[in-house]
Structures are given as C-alpha cells and as structure tokens.
C-alpha cells in the first residue's frame, strides 16, 4: 500500500472530498447562481458597461472555471506530497 497506514488513507480521501466540495460550490454559485438563477437581480447592477448577471453568464463564470482547475491542481499536488502519494 502506498499510504503509511489506514488512517492516512482515510484522511487523504476526506481532505480530497472536502476540497472538491468547496470548489464545486464555487463552480455552482458563479454559473448557475450568478449566471442563471439570480441573473435578473444582478442585472440591476452595472459592471463597467455590462449588466452583472449577463457578464457572469457570458464571461465571468468562464474565467472562474479556469481558475478553479488551477487551484485544484495546486492544492491536490500539495495534498499528495503531504501524504507521500505523489509520483516523484
């Protein structure tokens, strides 16, 4: 087994899932929240020349998607190292 003991294995998976859940909450809030469900309300707010809900739906959510994957990558690589299950 790659892990030092059973507890480590459980803890690693738990931390992984908790990171996933946090990032997916952001994923959901910016796209389905700001871009769809609350788009009409946010459209009352101006963001430069855009209505904010429209901006989230056609621009903002995409930028945040990209950022989410890179955050995930960095955090997971650190997590792998912490538990000694990285590939180096």
């Amino acid at each position, binding site marked *: 087994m790659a892990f030092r003991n059973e507890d480590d294995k459980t803890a690693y998976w738990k931390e992984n899932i908790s990171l*996933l859940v946090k990032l997916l909450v952001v994923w959901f809030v910016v796209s389905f929240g700001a871009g769809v469900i609350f788009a009409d309300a946010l459209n009352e707010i101006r963001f430069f020349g855009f209505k904010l809900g429209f901006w989230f739906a056609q621009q903002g959510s*995409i930028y945040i998607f990209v950022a*989410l994957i890179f955050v995930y990558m960095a955090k997971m690589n650190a997590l792998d190292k912490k538990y000694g299950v990285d590939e180096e």
Partner: protein
Amino acid sequence: MDVQLLTFIIVGASFALYIAIAIWARAGSTNEFYVAGGGVHPVLNGMATAADWMSAASFISMAGLISFMGYDGAVYLMGWTGGYVLLALCLAPYLRKFGKFTVPDFIGDRYYSQTARTVAVFCAIFVSFTYVAGQMRGVGVVFSRFLEVDIVSGVIIGMAIVFFYTVLGGMKGITYTQVAQYCVLIFAYLVPVVFISMMVTGHILPQTAFGATLADGSGVYMLDKLDNLSTELGFNEYTDGSKSTIDVFFITFALMVGTAGLPHVIVRFFTVPKVRDARKSAGWALLFIAILYTTAPALASFGRVNMIETINGKDMAGTSYAEAPAWIKNWEKTGLITFKDKNGDGKMFYAAGSIDDPTSPNEVDVDRDIMVLANPEIANLPAWVIALVAAGGVAAALSTSAGLLLVISTSVSHDLLKRNFAPNITDKAELFYARLAAGVAIVIAGYFGVNPPGFVAQVVAFAFGLAASSFFPAIIMGIFSKRMNGKGAVSGMVAGIAFTAAYIIYFKFVNPAANTPDNWWFGISPEGIGTFGMLVNFIVAFVVFKLTGDAPEEIQQMVEDIRYPKGSGAASAH
C-alpha cells in the same frame, strides 16, 4: 490578390503543415495509436484537447447562435466550458491512474461485466458518429463558399486529409496535428474580432470591448445600443433573452455533464504521462478553450450590430437592395440569406418575425451559421483575414473529426474485437484493424457529410443527453462509491438512456408539433432533459445497488488504488 486565390494559398499551406506533421508522427504500436504512447506534454495535450473539443459548431456556428439568442446563448458558453471543471476535478485524474485505453475499458473493468462494456461501446460509437457527420458538413460549407468547389469535392478533400493522418498516425499523429490546428483556428478566430473591436469601441481586447462605450463619441455603451436596437425592431432585449430560467438551468447542466462524459474528450487524458499531468492538462485545455469562448460573445454582439446597421442603415430606414454590399449577394447564392421585398420599396429591412408573415416588417432572413464566416466581409476587413477565417473553420472541423474517428476505431478494434471476440489477437493485427476501422468510419462520415440527414442539428441534443445520462453517472459512481456494483450501474445506464432517448425521440421525431414549452415536463426542453436522465440513472443505480449488495472485494481494492496518484504507469492494455 483576390480572396479566392488567397484562400487557396492559406488553406493549402495549412494542409501541407498537417500532412508534414502526420508523416513525422507515425504510430508503430497500438499504444502509440490509441494513446500516443502516453508521453504527450501536458500543455501540448491541453492544446490538442482544446482543438479536439472546439468543433465546426464552436468555430462556425456558436457565435452566430449567441448573436441571435442574446443572453440565452450563455447556455453554450457555460455549458461547454463548465464541464471541464467536472472533468478535471472528478474524472480525469482517476481515469488516468486507472490507466487503460478507453472509456468502455473502465466501465467494463470497474463493473466486471461484458454487458456494461458492450453498452458503453455502443454509446461511444453512436455519440461519435452523430458528432462527426456535422463536422464533415462544416468542411463542405467552408469549401463551397470560399473555394467555390461543390460540397461533394469539399467533403472528399477533407476526408482525404483526415484519412491520411488518422490512419497513419493514430492518436500520436492526431495529437500533434491538433496542436497545429489549435494555433491556426485561434489565430483565425481572434484576428477579425480584434479588428472589429478596435473599429467599434477602440479596445484591443474583445472581452472588454463589448462592455465598452462606442468609439463614435456618443458615450453610449455598446450593449445598451444593442438592447435598444433589439427592442425597437421587435426582439427581446439582447442582454435578457427569452428562455425560462428553469430551461436555461437544465440545458446548461446537461451540456456540462455531457461534456464531461464525452468519450473523445475523456480519452485525451489517457495520453499524458502522470496523474498530476492529467490535472494540469485539463487546466490548460480549458484556458485554451476559454480564449475562444470569451471572445465568441463579443463577436456575437458586434456582428449583430454590424449586420443590423448594414441592412437597415444607420437611420433604420432600410437600405437599397440594388446597392447592397457584395457579401449579401454572395451568401444569397448559397441560400443562407433570403430577401423578399414585401412592401415593394426596393429597400431591405431586418426586424423580428418571419419573412413569410405579412404582418411582420421583416424582409431579410439571415441564417445563424453565417455570422462568423461573413463577419470579416460585413466589417470590410482585408481579403487575407477572410482567407484566414476559412482556414480556421476547416482546422476546427478536421481536428474534431479526427478525434471522433479515433474513438470509433478504438471502440471497434480494441473494445469489440480484442476484448470481446478475439482476445488472442496480436498487437500488430489489432493495429491493422484499428486502421481499417478508422478508414471505414471516415467513408461513412463522409457519406453523411455529402448527404446530410435532416436531423443533424437535432441529434446534437442526443449526443450530449446520452453522454450525460449514461457515461457520466457510471464513471462518477465507479470512482466515488467503491461499493457500487455492476448490476446497479448497468440498470442505471440503461434507465438513463432509455428515459432520455424516449423524451428526445418523442419531441424531435414522433411529434415535433408538440415541441413547445407547454407540453414539456416542468418546462424542460429536449436539449436539457439529459440532466433529468442523469438523475434517473443515479436513482435507479442506487436502488438496484441497495437490493443486490456490494461490489466484490477485489473491485473495491481497485477503486481504492485509483484514488491516489502514486504508482501510475503508462496506459496499457492489461
């Protein structure tokens, strides 16, 4: 130099480049043919994934759709990018650690069932064929408009090129050609938009330009002007849209989950050397995709304003048909623009409503698909920009076709032949059958390109709905629930597909007249029903699993092993 000669030169040069790369990257083994030997650099793989993903639909049709749909176009923008977050976080790293060649490989092994593998193979083949027919058509349209060869010759030229580098190079050849195709298509997409952004608002970045004020000194925001124009002509406000919130929600979700479940996208993550590379590669892929996807809405809104102003004139009184710009006449010849002088004043006028409806002031019918291709002409850009856009459209169509054809050939030679009928086949023979299958698939795809079934547009909903309601839940449960068993997963897949297919077939083919929001369940259109199908899959799988008991111990062990990166080898057949 005239446009046509320039187009020949630029498109011809790009073809020569693809062929040169194909010769350089020939495949010698099934490992190279299926997953490029598993040695592709993650950034290059990201680029190849982006080209693989961005099809003729993304390049040619998407901005046009947004242009006509306004806010509602966001379902494509978010749907076709948000899926990569799911892919990167929930699928790619684990499937890479699993280390096989194909998606049916995973489904078959994880659920220890030939039935599951076979169901997965047929889904993969169906989804890929649906998709590839549209690509070949895209090549045909570009050729017939810009090179003035007929669609049949256009499709045959396209087929020959794809045949050459798919059959010769397999995944290895495809990967490196896709890197080149990404560069061609993104450059071709950006150049005209940057030109137009600078002309209209003075911004270089299209992403900020369409939220800026107009360069004419009026101080009016571009989007406000577009909203006003739209309501004046009888359309909904551009930034508002006309779909219901629940439908936008369901369509976006179905496209995201469908994206994450498409076999030709998933298989790209088998080509990198390590699990950490799979994560990195997904990030780069989405970054490269986002460059086009954040530009498209800018192109859409500028294109809309330009089109309305060209046809209706700055004073919104209509312009004379006799003095119409050449692009209107050119596209009229292809049947994609129609003008009908209803009030007999010799002037064109564009507004809401059908040109056949006598009560509507609209006299011009413009096909959505021409927005990207016609945009450089509408904005009076130089001839080389027009030629470049043609090369970009072809690159987008070819790169996606090649990726899809590879999935088809792999499904036939590896999943069906090697894993079902002839397990003792040698590597060399398997490679021969893979090439043969790719060749046959190209011919079939080409046939559909020349004789497009009327339902190409309809079946796209199918491809995503099926991927969303079959593969995605099965893979997610296979990774995140180690006790999920084969019976549960297979029943879930079958129930999900059956439900989704029934709903789509009913509204698209059996009773298209009933395809209106009043008849839809909870107001969900056939495009968005995959989300519902996914839920059906999860629920059925869970119930059957509860009734039939845990997966065997060795399978649970295997699932635990794919959950951490250490010890990942190159992808292999065994």
